[in-house]
């Protein structure tokens, strides 16, 4: 269970860890505790699975990668094989089975359009994939995941 202190701490650093030599000291001062308390609590939250990843998050588009959201119609009896084959691509960062006509949704990041086309063509021809559509973004209005705890 998250304590009230954990929630305050996470709300504070979810998106704004200071770019300063002693970032945890700055956070500690705001929370009126010492630097070690912040570091130890963050290590605990990480070790206990509350924090998925800590650190820098880059924007794929600004780094020159091309991205898309793809959706597949997969025969249920072949779902496991198809999902695992898709997972095997390093550029697939999210892969979710969902209710609905298109039942497998994944995001794909590629170094360039050609690589993306080749990967999608390979996935589209996997046994068990009845149809595959790609829905590249036109504009991103919001990408930040910050939860109010």
């Amino acid at each position: 269970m998250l304590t009230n202190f954990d929630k305050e701490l996470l709300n504070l650093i979810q998106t704004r860890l200071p770019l300063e030599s002693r970032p945890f000291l700055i956070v500690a001062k705001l929370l009126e505790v010492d630097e070690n308390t912040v570091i130890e609590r963050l290590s605990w939250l990480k070790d206990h699975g509350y924090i998925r990843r800590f650190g820098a998050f880059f924007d794929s588009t600004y780094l020159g990668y091309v991205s898309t959201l793809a959706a597949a119609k997969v025969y249920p009896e072949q779902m496991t094989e198809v999902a695992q084959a898709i997972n095997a691509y390093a550029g697939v960062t999210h892969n979710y089975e969902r209710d609905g006509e298109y039942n497998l949704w994944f995001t794909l990041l590629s170094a360039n359009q050609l690589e993306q086309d080749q990967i999608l063509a390979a996935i589209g021809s996997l046994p068990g994939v009845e149809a595959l559509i790609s829905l590249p973004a036109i504009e991103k209005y919001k990408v930040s995941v910050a939860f109010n705890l």
Partner: protein
Amino acid sequence: MLDNLDKRIIAVMQGEFPLIAEPYKELARRIGITEHQLLEKLTEYRKTGKLRKMGVVLRHREVGYAANALCAWLVPEARLKEVGQLMAAYTIVTHCYSRIPQPQWPYNFYTMLHAHTRTECKALAAELAEATGLENYQLLFSTREWKKTSMTYFPEYAGGE
């Protein structure tokens, strides 16, 4: 354009972030530059949009957000910008993109909704529909997470010290 040092910094910054008093000094050591140089580069990346955030990504389920739905909306072309800005303002909406639709799948606008329960997700989608006047949408609940990870950019630059 990114040079080799940029790629090296980005690759190393995606590794384990040291939970120690001077984390940037340690990261700079791994990259082979000074702490000052690293902080300057990161500040520049943040200004130019390359660095989206410094912080944490939480495991939603563990922090109490068990239900997530991808909501696909049909938005008239002329209203995309207005709808995008309106929806992005909701805390519950964590991702919000307009996308190129397909003939067999006409939905051109997508929001990720995170809530504690499915019922809550449905109520929130209904609230967004009401606020935007959009009637045509599909709420796609996830039933299984097959993969969720962060992208490894420029992995070929991550090795060595």
